[in-house]
């Protein structure tokens, strides 16, 4: 079982949580800090929907796994692809670490960088239509690398 899991539709939070716990049951970690993201009912949406570009997500995640390992910790992550109805979960991440400070710091850093740089696109689903969540989206690190073309055209 990989440490980065993608699922069609909502996550089975209890099953994934339980499996991560079992996988690390003998690893002698003292602190386990999961983060679970659930779709809120707001703005009249019936679901959120997600596109993921897996190859870049995988290298982004692997680089984070390396950072975690250098601090003695281990990361797990799961995310939904496609539609995720309100009050179900689309995102889980977790740190296992020998000590609590690293676990608390790392889960925060990981989740924040995830929001900014994981290649995942979010859509509101309203009346069965998928609308890109443009106002909540953030240009990735390195955005603007194509600006040279614009300057040359002007």
């Amino acid at each position, binding site marked *: 079982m990989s440490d980065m899991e993608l699922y069609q539709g909502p996550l089975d939070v209890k099953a994934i949580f339980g499996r991560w716990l079992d996988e690390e049951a003998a690893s002698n970690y003292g602190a386990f800090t999961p983060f679970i*993201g659930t779709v809120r009912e707001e703005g009249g949406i019936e679901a959120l929907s*997600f*596109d*993921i*570009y897996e*190859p*870049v997500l995988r*290298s982004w995640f692997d680089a984070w796994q390396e950072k975690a390992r250098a601090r003695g910790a281990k990361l797990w992550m799961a*995310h939904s692809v496609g539609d995720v109805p309100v009050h179900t979960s*689309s*995102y889980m991440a977790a740190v296992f670490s020998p000590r609590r400070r690293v676990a608390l710091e790392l889960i925060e850093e990981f*989740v924040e960088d*995830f*929001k*900014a*740089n*994981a*290649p*995942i*696109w*979010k*859509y509101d689903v309203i009346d069965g239509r998928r609308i*890109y*969540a*443009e106002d*909540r*989206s*953030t*240009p*990735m*690190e*390195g*955005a*603007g*690398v*194509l*600006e*040279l*073309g*614009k300057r*040359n*055209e002007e």
Partner: protein
Amino acid sequence: MVKVEFLGPIAREPMEVEADSLAELSRVLFREESIRPWLEKCAVAVNDVMVKDPNHPLKDGDRVSILPPVCGG
């Protein structure tokens, strides 16, 4: 020829472009009406590796991904 693919919400089929650098590719893309508004907010991966140098060289067969603003979670 490099293959350019547009990810997420950019509703655009992949295209084949003659370009030997990212700078040259970006000049081509900025001429396309439907793509232009996206470009200044987009990041770029070449063969699935993120690229931050606007003069990054391209070679025949490279696969260039255009990544619009993201929002996971």
